[in-house]
């Protein structure tokens, strides 16, 4: 199971990478492995406001749909339109080309509610 060292993680298996107040987010390797082949991503609307841990994306695999939650509160400023036609990018490169959305962060202090890579690794181990 791959975990990006410099990213932060949620208990729902979203990752986030924050630079200059912009949070790029997606789902972790663990999440894409559990979902299987991703066939559809219902992207959030750009310019919409989201709260931390609010459901704002839906990811579908062949057999199921899963809710994805915003790791940070703020305004959605960009979504990955490539996922509309090639949702499998999430399986191929979940920490890179399979990113889902960018959020202009409202409150940086909320990052304390997230896990570091090491904490996430321990969390995954605790699930088994």
């Amino acid at each position, binding site marked *: 199971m791959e975990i990006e060292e410099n990213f932060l993680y949620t208990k729902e298996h979203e990752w986030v990478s924050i630079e200059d107040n912009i949070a790029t987010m997606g789902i972790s390797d663990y999440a894409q492995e559990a979902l299987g082949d991703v066939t559809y991503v219902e992207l959030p609307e750009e310019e919409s406001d989201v709260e931390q841990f609010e459901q704002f994306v839906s990811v*579908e695999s*062949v*057999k*199921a749909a899963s809710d994805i939650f915003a790791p940070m509160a703020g305004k959605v400023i960009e979504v990955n339109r490539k996922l509309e036609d090639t949702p499998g990018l999430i399986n191929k490169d979940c920490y890179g080309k399979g990113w889902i959305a960018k959020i202009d962060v409202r409150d940086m202090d909320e990052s304390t509610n997230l896990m570091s890579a090491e904490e996430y690794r321990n969390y995954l181990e605790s699930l088994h």
Partner: protein
Amino acid sequence: MSVQVPLHNTPLADEHVALGAKMVGFGGWNMPLQYESILAEWDHNRKTVSIFDCSHMGEFLIKGDAKACGLDSIVTQTIVDMPVNTCRYGAMLNGQGGIIDDLIVYRKAPEDWMIVVNAANIEKNAQHFRDSLNANAQFEDASFKIAKLDLQGPQSRDVLKVLAPGIEKLSYYTFDQFQINDIPCLISRTGYTGELGFEIYCPWEKCKEIWKSFLAHATVKPTGLGVRDVLRVEMCYSLYGHELDESISPLEAGLDKFIDGKKDFIGRQAALARPPERSIGYFISASRKSPRAGNKIFDSGEKEMGVVTSGTFSPALQVGIGIGFMSRTSKDAGTGIFFGDEKSKSAATVAKRPFYKNGSLKS
């Protein structure tokens, strides 16, 4: 307090785990969901050849004259005119006209029958047969003696004819007795995928040996229940617990052509008494968004008129596809409908069955 009922294992449970399968409970059985990605398994089945462990399914052996022993009045389809070594699809109903199960009848000899039923219903069905057959019938539930492997895909005949010479002669929905590695097997040209394929019934304790003989073949890949469900939805085949159950009549379920209206059978009167208000229909999503069982179906005016019973992403069509019960007035092919819930509705179009039209089924 909850009572945990242990799952049954097929003769291949250890093999599936060794092959890295994700295992799930299905109909009371511990079964492989997938070995690799569902899309890869789908592709292999539609283009090459796959093997499925279907040993969880039930097999009943009945001896007797169809009419005199009571078998003919249990099943909905005509069986008295079946030639020996053919099979025929149908169902059996309860007294209220609801579907107890769908099934395939095999005629092995004029008075020797095998009935194949769904895994989840084995005990219920066996009870129904015992209660409904006459005293002169011989009945045996052989579900734990007979294992079943499905070899499916356009190259299935090429693979099987090497192991079981003579299977080339089998036409669709016929069967015969063969030997694989000197093991006696009943092999029928049937399946649940829409591809050319065979179902191989073999002794429970020999199943592992036959399974390994197939997997030794470079082109044969094991395939799980996950893709089996996608394949059957693409073909618009019904699944008990989704499109069929004891509250659903065969007319609602679209089984009209598997009912012999000229004979008497259990549940006939109730089942045929009134035309149903809703019946089964098929629809294609306008996007990759896929309908899911339990979603509501709305008409073109966004008024609720049905419910989704099965839904999946279709690798063949590259969009979502669904099966559901819908108002008879809104189910002509080409009609625009919606699926989802009150908050979020997605556009779809009513389609004719099957969704997947390029299968090698009858080649």
